[in-house]
């Protein structure tokens, strides 16, 4: 579908959100709460916070919640009953996230839809629309251009808004779903603006080539660089849980012999227990092996198996890390090593 260009006036954004909410869409957007900007449901445009480089957490929770019920069971005299919740009742519009987060839907969907389709994820994806806003500021942690993205990238978005110099937005309607959203408020979207999009975007320098890195990484399996880099890593799960592209999960049962439920919850390859066998054998027993797995998975295995890079260069993991494990710096060290 060719991308249609329109203009969305600055003052029309509030109305657009009200139309969305009237159209049975729940709208989630970045909101400022104490020192952190994080995604939450909004009732109007005034709740939206715009002056930040990147939110602390990604909007991944909308598509892949941190705790999700797979099914509920009820034991009976002869047998058991397995009940499943239907999908989220209301559609959700994720409004105002960055293009790199929108691009992060691709690695998520790649894992959840290859081979056996993951029904819970597919239901949520079908009922989610993404209205992204291009980046007008970036910092040294950002490296979207090195992994195939850019501050104005339309991949993954249904509508991409770019704030122009006058404050109005260039609206690029990318997908059918985007078109359906625009139809809810067609009068607000006027003819395409003259102004160039590129000069309103942040500058993010390309620091390495993801393809070359993917070819180089297998050769680094036994290199001491992993030990050197991961000495200060504490083995917590912060990087995996703020990452918009991390999909590893755990399945846990909660309940008793009468009733209960099976839950899917986030997990991280950084934890020591992630691959621990009940016999005590652990194929990845030291932190350097886990740090290697994290990078190999995102930059070598996933591109190789599902031809999608497991990272969108949003820089959240480096910002959230308590000991400043700067992913970009370590990737460059390997790319040039």
């Amino acid at each position, binding site marked *: 579908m060719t991308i249609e260009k329109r203009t969305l006036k600055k003052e029309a954004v509030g109305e657009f959100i009200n139309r969305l909410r009237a159209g049975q869409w729940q709208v989630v957007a970045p909101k400022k709460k104490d020192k952190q900007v994080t995604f939450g449901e909004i009732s109007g445009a005034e709740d939206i916070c715009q002056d930040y480089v990147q939110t602390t957490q990604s909007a991944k929770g909308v598509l892949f*919640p941190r*705790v*999700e*019920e797979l099914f509920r069971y009820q034991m009976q005299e002869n047998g058991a009953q397995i009940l499943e919740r239907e999908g*989220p009742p209301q559609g959700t519009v994720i409004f105002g996230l960055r293009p790199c987060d929108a691009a992060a839907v691709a690695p998520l969907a790649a894992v959840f839809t290859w081979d056996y389709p993951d029904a819970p994820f597919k239901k949520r994806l079908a009922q989610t629309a993404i209205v992204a806003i291009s980046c007008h500021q970036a910092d040294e942690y950002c490296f979207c251009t090195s992994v195939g993205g850019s501050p104005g990238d339309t991949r993954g978005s249904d509508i991409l808004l770019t704030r122009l110099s006058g404050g109005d937005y260039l609206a690029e309607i990318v997908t059918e779903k985007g078109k359906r959203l625009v139809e809810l408020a067609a009068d607000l979207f006027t003819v395409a603006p003259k102004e160039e999009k590129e000069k309103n975007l942040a500058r993010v320098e390309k620091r390495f080539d993801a393809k070359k890195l993917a070819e180089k990484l297998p050769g680094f399996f036994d290199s001491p660089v992993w030990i050197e880099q991961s000495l200060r890593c504490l083995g917590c799960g912060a990087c995996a849980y703020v990452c918009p592209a991390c999909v590893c999960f755990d399945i846990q049962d909660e309940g008793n012999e009468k009733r209960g439920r099976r*839950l899917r919850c986030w997990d991280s390859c950084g934890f020591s227990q992630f691959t621990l066998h009940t016999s005590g054998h652990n194929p990845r027993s030291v932190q350097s092996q886990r740090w290697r797995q994290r990078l190999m998975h995102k930059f070598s295995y996933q591109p190789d198996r599902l031809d999608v890079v497991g990272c969108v260069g949003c820089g959240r993991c480096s910002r959230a890390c308590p000991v400043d494990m700067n992913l970009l710096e370590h990737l460059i060290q390997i790319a040039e090593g």
Partner: protein
Amino acid sequence: MSEFEPRVVAFVCNWCTYAGADLTGTSRIKYAPNVRIIRFPCTGRIDFMLLLKAFANGADGIIVSGCHPNDCHYTSGNFHARRRWIMFRELLDFMGIDVRRVRFAWISAAEGAKWAQFVNAVVKDIRALGPYQHYRQVVGAGIQ
């Protein structure tokens, strides 16, 4: 709906309070049936997490009772427990968990009457406080 019947869970030590409760029974003293008694070798063996487990499973009030200081069958179990409860009670209060619902006592094997009075008093207070909705809303929250 009939009057609210609180569910009270009692963690008691085997040598003193449990025996005391036995004595209450053998001396035919009636007391509120709302209490469910769980026996432990000693108050020192009661893990503080069990109180939270009781609340999560629907308890409205909790009783913890054991031997008087210096009477502990294991000499120092109740002393350690006392320190643990002093700190745990403060932590619960600090986190906003209603400590009026957690009642502690020393009840020896001979104090059958005291056990009955104590249980009746606790059940009356908890009935006044009503069901512990706050905690029960936490169970199952945060799951999509």
